[in-house]
């Protein structure tokens, strides 16, 4: 790869409108995913803030209970599907072809189609903003409530899931083919970036899991509109079946969200401490171990739903077992830092913060895996606090860290570190103030999902602290958006500002439309992305 032949690239953001909407370039499609995702993230964040203000004091302040249910549904569904899952779609699109030294993905047009499926699902979400079309069945859509008219339009919920699944499957087959067949010479599944494994494992989990969710919601649709009896207990159907099918995907879905964040942590930690990632092979096994084990733990969401004891014991055991590969990863990250030349910039801070938040979320998850504890805190604010630590914060900090880390590559500019670091401290302080009191209130018996609660002084205190934290968190996120926006006019980044050996840093910043200068790309036999 010689430096000289690089032509002056047209940055992706200079493309014409026509190029944007008809593009098959993986980098532009990545930006489309990212922008859509950030837009919905902001909307879902505001929904969350509305819920937060409502819960600050007991009694029903300013949200009608039906509207509250809609906001809860919207916050959950959009944060999970449009942010925690879809934002990684942007990373997969931008990075995977660059990591493996490919010209584009295997099926560039299919890639564009996947985006339009996603876009169609986004339009359906916007339709639910109309008051008469509000969905109030929570993102889980459990029957029998979701078949009830008060739950809002079941059809829109079902079609949102189906469209987003179509997007996922299109992306899935595309990227699996890309990684299996389009790697540059001497880039193997053994020496490619951990982020490649992280993204692909999450894509494989979706490919296997999503169809179960689709099957479940199609049956929901048929029950409501055609009159089938799948989930109608009065005719011999079984509503708990829906829960099994739902969680068969939706539990692995949490690994779809967190595994790419693990990938970011590995890349950033290694680069910013200028040390090869410790225990690289065990990291790969841990990633795939988590992805595989994720499929046999789903019933821990249903310990109170009624199921045989052997199933509870089995799923409790497998859930605790997931702590092993996760622990391996955390120890390896810490060992990577040991004696490293650590550079504490914004990307690194977000990664360290993400690992910290994941640790708290993970350690509170282990007791939740035990039925003896879980049945007491099931559906309490403790669970809400727990999953906001892992899915809310570990994923978001990972995603932000990823953007800060690859920002010079994506835009060709450096961000202002001072703004980035301010944002980090606001977010880390705010989110801990927000979610830790939730867990404490939950341990004192505060249930989740209700618009109102009795005047218990401890609950009120916790909710007030949480609201202060929520405001700090929101300001922190806005500061990050400012950092990204102002970064567009920041100083030139050059090819490789972080001194990484990974393939994407060999390209000009931003990468030219055709990525590498010549094909086939070839790397040395002993190449590794983690050589410093």
């Amino acid at each position, binding site marked *: 790869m010689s430096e000289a032949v690089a032509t002056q690239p047209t940055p992706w953001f200079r493309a014409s409108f026509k190029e944007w909407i008809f593009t098959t370039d993986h980098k532009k499609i990545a930006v489309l995913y990212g922008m859509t995702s950030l837009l919905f993230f902001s909307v879902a964040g505001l929904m969350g803030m509305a819920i937060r203000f409502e819960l600050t004091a007991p009694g029903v302040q300013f949200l009608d209970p039906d509207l509250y249910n809609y906001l809860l549904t919207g916050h959950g569904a959009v944060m999970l599907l449009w942010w925690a899952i879809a934002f990684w779609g942007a990373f997969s699109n931008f990075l995977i072809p660059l990591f493996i030294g490919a010209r584009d993905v295997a099926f560039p047009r299919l890639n564009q189609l996947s985006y339009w499926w996603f876009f169609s699902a986004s339009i359906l979400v916007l339709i639910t903003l109309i008051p008469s079309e509000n969905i109030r069945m929570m993102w889980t859509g459990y029957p029998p409530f979701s078949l009830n008219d008060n739950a809002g339009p079941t059809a829109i919920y079902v079609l949102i899931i189906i469209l987003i699944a179509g997007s996922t499957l299109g992306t899935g*087959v595309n990227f699996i*083919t890309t990684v299996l067949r389009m790697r540059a010479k001497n880039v193997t599944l053994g020496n490619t970036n951990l982020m490649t494994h992280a993204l692909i494992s999450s894509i494989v989990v979706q490919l296997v899991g999503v169809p179960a969710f689709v099957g479940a919601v199609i049956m929901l649709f048929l029950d409501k509109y*055609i009159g089938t009896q*799948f989930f109608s207990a009065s*005719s011999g159907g079984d509503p708990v079946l829906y829960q099994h099918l739902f969680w068969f995907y939706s539990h692995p879905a949490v690994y779809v969200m967190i595994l790419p964040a693990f990938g970011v942590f590995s890349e950033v930690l290694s680069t910013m401490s200028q040390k090869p990632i410790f225990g690289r092979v065990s990291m790969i096994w841990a990633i795939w171990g988590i992805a595989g084990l994720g499929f046999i733990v789903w019933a821990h969401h249903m310990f109170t739903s009624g199921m045989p004891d052997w199933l509870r014991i089995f799923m409790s055991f497998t859930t605790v077992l997931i702590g092993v590969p996760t622990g391996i990863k955390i120890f390896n990250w810490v060992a990577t830092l040991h004696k490293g030349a650590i550079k504490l910039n914004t990307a690194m801070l977000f990664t360290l913060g993400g690992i910290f938040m994941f640790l708290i979320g993970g350690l509170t998850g282990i007791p939740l895996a035990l039925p003896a504890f879980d049945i007491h805190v099931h559906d309490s604010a403790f669970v809400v606090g727990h999953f906001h630590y892992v899915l809310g914060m570990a994923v978001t900090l990972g995603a932000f860290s990823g953007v800060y880390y690859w920002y010079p590559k994506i835009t060709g500019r450096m961000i202002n570190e001072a703004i980035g670091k301010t944002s980090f401290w606001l977010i880390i302080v705010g989110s801990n103030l927000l979610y830790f009191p939730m867990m404490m209130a939950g341990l004192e018996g505060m249930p989740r999902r209700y618009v109102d609660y009795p005047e218990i002084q401890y609950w009120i205190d916790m909710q007030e602290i949480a609201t202060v934290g929520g405001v700090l968190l929101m300001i922190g996120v806005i500061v990050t958006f400012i950092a990204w926006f102002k970064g567009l006019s920041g100083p030139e980044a050059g090819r490789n500002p972080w001194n990484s050996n990974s393939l994407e840093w060999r390209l000009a910043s931003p990468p030219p439309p055709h990525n590498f200068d010549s094909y086939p790309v070839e790397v040395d036999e002993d190449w590794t992305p983690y050589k410093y």
Partner: protein
Amino acid sequence: MQEAAVHSEHETSVWPMVVGASVLLAAMSLLTYFHWQQPTLGVILAGLTVAVLAIGVTGWAREFFQHGTEEGLGPIAVAAFIISEVIIFGTVFVTFWLYRITHFDTWGSYVPEGLDATFAIWLTLILWSSSFTIVLSERAFSRGDKNGAMTWLIATIVLGSLFVVLHMNEWVHLVDEGFTVSSNVFGSSFYALTGVHTSHVLVGLGIHLVLLSVLANGMMTSDRPTFYKGAALYWHFVDIMWLLVAANAYLIGGSA
């Protein structure tokens, strides 16, 4: 083995967006029909969906064969897609088996008189022979025998359509007899099993029609077999699934 492939394709394409528009239209037509309860408008939108889809797929195929290059990666993608299809069938099988087991004591009263396993054998023979004809078609195609390929492909389409028509006819008879989706949990899962399969047959037939048209107008030549291989792989999968569907819906479900 891992030569980085060079796509010499254009950086932009109109057609995925057209197909994407048909996806949104399909969703809107379902919403209009079932949720907003405007059946006429819903059907019109469904017709529009098919038209837009046809335009999109035609344009896409034309662009692919006239300007695109071929890496031969299609069958891998189809194989990956089949994994997810297995899960979606699995969902329906799980549902069926759950009800078959939990309702074993009353199951006998659910089974309709007209449910005939020998008819399922006829359906099996028809569908499986279509798997055979598509192999013959593919072989003729790789020999460069366009007429042979088209003849056997048409035979495949005829057999597949015959399967759909006979199967739907059987549904009509069963419904007339009073065995509907809402009769009992066997009714729901019987139509789910056979319905999810028939919908796959219909998708397969749609793919065959696209295949036939690009073959007929000479766009697809024997040096570009990827689409053919992918389509045939999918069709074999659909045919194999039928054996499982029929065995469950007719034999295990039909016995009291």
